[in-house]
């Protein structure tokens, strides 16, 4: 029998076994739904960021006009920096972020910063939630990592043992088709079918995101498909090995379900536990208490300074000099920040340490490895958020310096100054570079897949495959 005939017969068989077509249709529909779900979350985030940016732009234009008209407030660097203007900065919108929300809803994509201390906007983050670092929302990444292996188990758990139980394997062998050739054709048919549906599903989900079709988008999409297919192949290879070695279909299904539980649920949970235990996050309560204490101290210091100033200038009682006031605010903010900075750094360091632990431990689970790769491709992983955060902190320094320098030198803000406001440049994603950075985990999974396939091939050559292991109670 020609290979094409076996493949065609297998396709007919799969079509007739209605479960498989329904599984594939289910995957397609679920992926489309996940694509919409992801897009809704991202759209909401982007709309929020866009609204904040528009609002800031309108405000800046208005301040510019007021500065041209000689408004005292618009010309005061202190008033603008500390009372009027806050600047929203957003992470670069990645083309297929909606496919893997990752930590996109956990770590903010937009910070609204002013010249006040970094704690005023960095406090929005929630770095201690390590559980969400390796799990996710109902998005396409969730389907690929969590659900796809279950579909593989459903389609392939009995690819070998089922044929033996049905007595088909011995008939195939008598027909002159080796067990290896027969099973590999079945395996390839099912794998290719799953791979085709996965690819179509991902492309459809990507299309739903309505991205700008640039080279980066193409690289990211290619990376998504490649990662998902390699992950799929790994599970298919595992199903082959398990089905080859199991004594019954039930045993094969149970073992594979166990593998899913261990690699997709247990290992990521253990990774979370270890990351949280080895790198325990600093206390939130301590952060809040320190912030309150520092603010109180700073307020007291300002009040004392103000009292001293009024003591020296009794004639100006009730009409404090605006510049002097904002200078004291600047000093107060600097004081608070000095106290808060080590604590914030502790949180940031903790997040980095946890990421480092997860970065190492991800190799224990193909599920985590794939999830990290997919979120990385979609630009929603912790590492890219950390880059964005670092860029925001650097930008915040420029922003504050811009105003404080003018405040200290008593230089009023001019119309030209408004045109020279520091602009935020978000870290850009190089699609090609991104794929290269994923090459190690992908090659590792590919190598493991090949190893499992080789093991499966070896087992397919064993005579036990046809007749089972001898037991004296049989024939």
């Amino acid at each position: 029998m020609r290979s094409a005939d076996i493949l065609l017969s297998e396709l007919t068989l799969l079509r007739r076994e209605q479960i498989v077509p329904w599984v594939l249709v289910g995957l397609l529909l679920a992926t489309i739904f996940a694509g919409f779900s992801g897009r809704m979350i991202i759209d909401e985030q982007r709309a929020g960021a866009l609204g904040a940016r528009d609002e800031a732009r309108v405000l800046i234009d208005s301040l510019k006009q007021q500065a041209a008209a000689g408004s005292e407030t618009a010309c005061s660097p202190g008033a603008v920096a500390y009372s009027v203007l806050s600047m929203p900065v957003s992470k670069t919108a990645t083309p297929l972020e909606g496919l893997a929300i990752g930590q996109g809803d956990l770590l903010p994509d937009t910070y609204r910063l002013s010249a006040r201390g970094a704690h005023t906007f960095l406090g929005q983050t929630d770095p201690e939630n390590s559980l969400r670092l390796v799990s996710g929302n109902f998005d396409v990444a969730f389907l690929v990592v969590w659900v796809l292996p279950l579909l593989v188990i459903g389609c392939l758990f009995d690819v070998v043992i089922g044929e033996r139980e049905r007595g088909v394997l011995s008939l195939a062998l008598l027909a002159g088709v080796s067990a290896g050739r027969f099973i590999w054709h079945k395996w390839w048919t099912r794998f290719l079918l799953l791979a085709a549906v996965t690819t179509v599903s991902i492309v459809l989900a990507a299309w739903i995101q309505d991205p700008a079709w640039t080279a980066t988008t193409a690289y990211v999409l290619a990376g998504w498909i490649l990662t998902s297919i390699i992950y799929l192949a790994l599970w298919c290879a595992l199903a082959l090995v398990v089905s080859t070695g199991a004594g019954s279909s039930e045993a094969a299904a149970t073992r594979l379900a166990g593998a899913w539980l261990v690699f997709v649920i247990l290992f990521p949970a253990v990774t979370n536990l270890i990351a949280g235990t080895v790198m325990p996050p600093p206390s939130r309560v301590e952060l809040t208490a320190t912030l309150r204490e520092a603010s109180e101290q700073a307020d007291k210091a300002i009040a004392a300074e103000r009292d001293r100033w009024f003591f020296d200038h009794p004639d100006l009682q009730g009409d404090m000099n605006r510049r002097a006031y904002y200078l004291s605010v600047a000093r107060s903010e600097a004081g608070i920040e000095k106290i808060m900075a080590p604590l914030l750094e502790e949180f940031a360091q903790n997040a980095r340490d946890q990421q480092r632990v997860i970065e190492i431990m991800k190799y224990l689970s193909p599920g985590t490895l794939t999830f990290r790769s997919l979120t990385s491709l979609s630009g929603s992983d912790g590492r890219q958020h950390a880059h964005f955060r670092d860029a925001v902190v650097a930008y915040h320094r420029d922003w504050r310096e811009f105003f404080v320098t003018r405040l200290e030198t008593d230089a009023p803000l001019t119309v030209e100054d408004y045109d020279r406001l520091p602009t935020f440049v978000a870290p850009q994603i190089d699609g090609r570079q991104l794929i290269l950075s994923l090459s190690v985990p992908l090659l590792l999974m590919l190598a493991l897949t090949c190893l499992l396939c080789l093991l499966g091939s070896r087992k397919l050559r064993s005579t036990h495959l046809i007749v089972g292991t001898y037991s004296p109670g049989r024939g």
Partner: protein
Amino acid sequence: MLEAIGLTKNYGEVRALRSLDLQVKSGEIYCLLGANGAGKTTALNIFLGFVLATSGIARIDNINVSQDPIATRKRIAYIPETVTLYGALSGLENLDYFSKLSGIKHSAESLRRVLAQAGLAVEAYDRPLQGYSKGMRQKVGIAIAIARDAKVLLLDEPTSGLDPKASNEFSQLILAMAERGSAILMATHDLFRARETGSRIGIMRDGSLRKEFVAGEIGHRDLENEYLETMQEG
């Protein structure tokens, strides 16, 4: 047509088959009786080429099975104890699938003729196999054997679980195949069916062939006594 000379199979310390000598000629039905573990299935597996003999020779159509298993397999049809096949496919489609697997392409008409020869009711041809009784599935198994036009038919407890009517129909089918010139080796627990269907009967115990009879020369009661006696031997 089918011959075993000093056929022995050891699984580690366990001797599953001890120097089996056996010959089944064309048109003959040889029934191997014996309890579980007597070595019947092991003998069949050696003829099928699924298991290598530790020593001795297994020949099919004068070809040594261990030397050319592909050639010998071409001459064999086999019906295992459980013929489940593909439940989602109809009897006709299963037959077509396994015929194609053997490299034989039958027309739809020819496939229907083969199913009719195997005794399957016409209304069952296009029904999915999952709705078939065990007897009907065995008939599809027979049809696959007929379609292969095999010279040797090996059966492993084919009537276990069949009701008397289905069992009788099955016997008629293999008798018809023997009449067409096939050599048939059947491992079974069914003494009555062995006596009714077989040309010769062998009783196995602990891997060796203890007794052999010509089916027509022994009565049911005597066969039963001989069987029980063999099972009780030290």
